């Protein structure tokens, strides 16, 4: 546990009871309000013959700095409007969540300026030649700044990794046909279920063999098997883990997640995996949504630029999303509920009384997934009257592409924030045994994930299409 920045009890707000206040006190709901708000606005504009295109500006491909400079000179009002829109929307949400606007505003100015530079860098026509993939640049730049230069901790108010990725996932729902969710979802759930259970059992079993506490074993296992840091903190609470258990699990998850951001796209590239297959593998074997999207976007950006990779960039992101969000994230409430029952009825009794409640499955449900599904339904309903050719000519440029561009911004804010908030020297000391136990699960997870994605269900993931 770190004692950095700890204040006295009186400095923190008292707990509020559950209820409607969750709609404005949890970031999942704010991701829905923001993401769906953008999608609904885009849909209304589209149906009225207009588009979000003007404000969804991104730097275009360029080959000389003069070209890039000319683009910014011509379009600076659009960037300014976009910056102000993000600032206001995120500012309202984060203020409602309890962050201070005075800390958020300078942080977001810094984040936006860096994001412009990173996205522009990725659009250089030689970027692929030097592997300058925006997600990797964002992560590397963020890590460099936070670990070498250092920024005031107060600025973390604007570096909200999870909030940006959840908003991006809701926007992503608008680009993913709901028919594809229905068609590919069951296979994603089956594959993710197999790998999650195997990974959990391996980490849990090895942890016990190494003499670790059952509650730490469960927290580590859930972190590796389900949804990384989110699962670790959820299961730590469900099993009444000791307060040092969650930071240990979080440290191991972060270390492996960051390694996998680089390793999984690299291995996929060396093996020339089709776009959808690589997305499914990354979705099965990465440990956190934000890290996984960084890896999936990186590989998706290689498609079409590197010889021997079949498919489209969209297939990588779609397969990853189906596997990670639908196949793994959705089930965290059930994992927590089952482990709470086991902890309170089978493991050693602690001094605390508690009765596991099935309603916990809903309380812990990652609500942003609702926004993702609704966004998919909205755009699928609008698109249903169009042929594929008409969709590509009319719906895609006016409705889907601008939302996708705004998603790109949200994702880059997230990737940069990962680096800016990951300070290695401040992470808890995980210890050798927890690290070994978790690593054994990583080995099983990566191999099993590859076998299922690239061999058993390869035909399925190769052919994801609209």
């Amino acid at each position: 546990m770190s004692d950095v920045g700890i204040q006295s009890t009186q400095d923190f707000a008292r707990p509020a009871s559950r209820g409607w206040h969750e709609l404005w006190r949890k970031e999942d709901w704010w991701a829905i309000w923001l993401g769906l708000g953008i999608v609904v606005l885009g849909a209304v504009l589209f149906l009225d013959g207009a588009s979000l295109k003007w404000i969804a500006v991104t730097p275009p491909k360029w080959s000389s700095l003069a070209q890039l400079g000319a683009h910014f000179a011509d379009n600076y009002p659009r960037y300014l409007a976009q910056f102000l829109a993000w600032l206001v929307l995120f500012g309202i949400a984060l203020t409602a969540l309890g962050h201070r606007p005075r800390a958020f505003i300078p942080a977001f100015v810094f984040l936006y300026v860096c994001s412009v530079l990173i996205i522009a860098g990725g659009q250089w026509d030689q970027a692929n030649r030097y592997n300058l993939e925006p997600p990797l640049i964002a992560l590397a730049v963020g890590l460099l700044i936070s670990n070498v230069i250092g920024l005031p901790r107060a600025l973390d108010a604007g570096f909200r990794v999870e909030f940006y990725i959840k908003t991006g996932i809701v926007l992503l729902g608008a680009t993913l046909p709901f028919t594809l969710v229905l068609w590919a979802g069951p296979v994603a759930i089956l594959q993710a279920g197999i790998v999650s259970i195997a990974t959990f059992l391996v980490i849990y079993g090895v942890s016990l063999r190494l003499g670790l506490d059952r509650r730490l074993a469960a927290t580590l296992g859930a972190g590796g098997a389900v949804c990384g840091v989110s699962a670790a903190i959820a299961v730590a609470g469900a099993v009444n883990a000791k307060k040092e258990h969650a930071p240990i699990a979080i440290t191991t998850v972060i270390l492996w997640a960051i390694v996998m951001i680089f390793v999984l796209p690299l291995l996929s590239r060396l093996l020339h995996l089709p776009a959808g297959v690589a997305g499914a593998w990354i979705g099965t074997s990465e440990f956190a949504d934000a890290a996984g999207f960084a890896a999936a976007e990186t590989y998706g950006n290689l498609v079409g630029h590197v010889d021997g990779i079949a498919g489209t960039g969209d297939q990588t992101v779609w397969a990853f999303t189906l596997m990670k969000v639908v196949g793994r994230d959705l089930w965290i409430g059930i994992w927590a509920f089952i482990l709470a029952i086991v902890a309170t009825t089978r493991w050693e009794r602690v001094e605390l009384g508690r009765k596991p409640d099935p309603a916990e499955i809903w309380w812990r449900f990652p609500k942003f997934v609702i926004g993702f599904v609704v966004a998919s339904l909205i755009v699928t309903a609008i698109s249903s009257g169009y042929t594929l050719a008409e969709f590509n000519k009319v719906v895609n440029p006016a409705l889907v592409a601008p939302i996708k561009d705004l998603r790109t911004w949200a994702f880059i804010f997230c990737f940069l924030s990962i680096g800016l908030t990951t300070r290695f020297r401040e992470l808890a000391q995980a210890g050798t045994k927890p690290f070994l136990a978790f690593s054994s699960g990583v080995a099983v997870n990566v191999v099993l994930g590859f076998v299922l994605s690239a061999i058993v269900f390869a035909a399925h993931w190769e052919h994801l299409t609209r």
Partner: protein
Amino acid sequence: MAAPSRPDTCRDCRHFRDDPAYLEAVCSGLASLGSAYASVRGEDGICDHHGRYVSARAWCDAFLPRLEAADRKPDDAR
């Protein structure tokens, strides 16, 4: 452990701390690839008395009412 006659759960206990800012401050790395503001955390927090992550709906014999909670009716505290 039997349920206490009064519903004095961790939510209203002085030992229970579930403010997201506090949890992110004491739990290094939580904000890097996760968040204390997320739905998956539910209402869990840290019990300073037992040194454990606990649910707001848990209870124990060491319950100490918060000053502001002590003045409220039990039903209001739920």
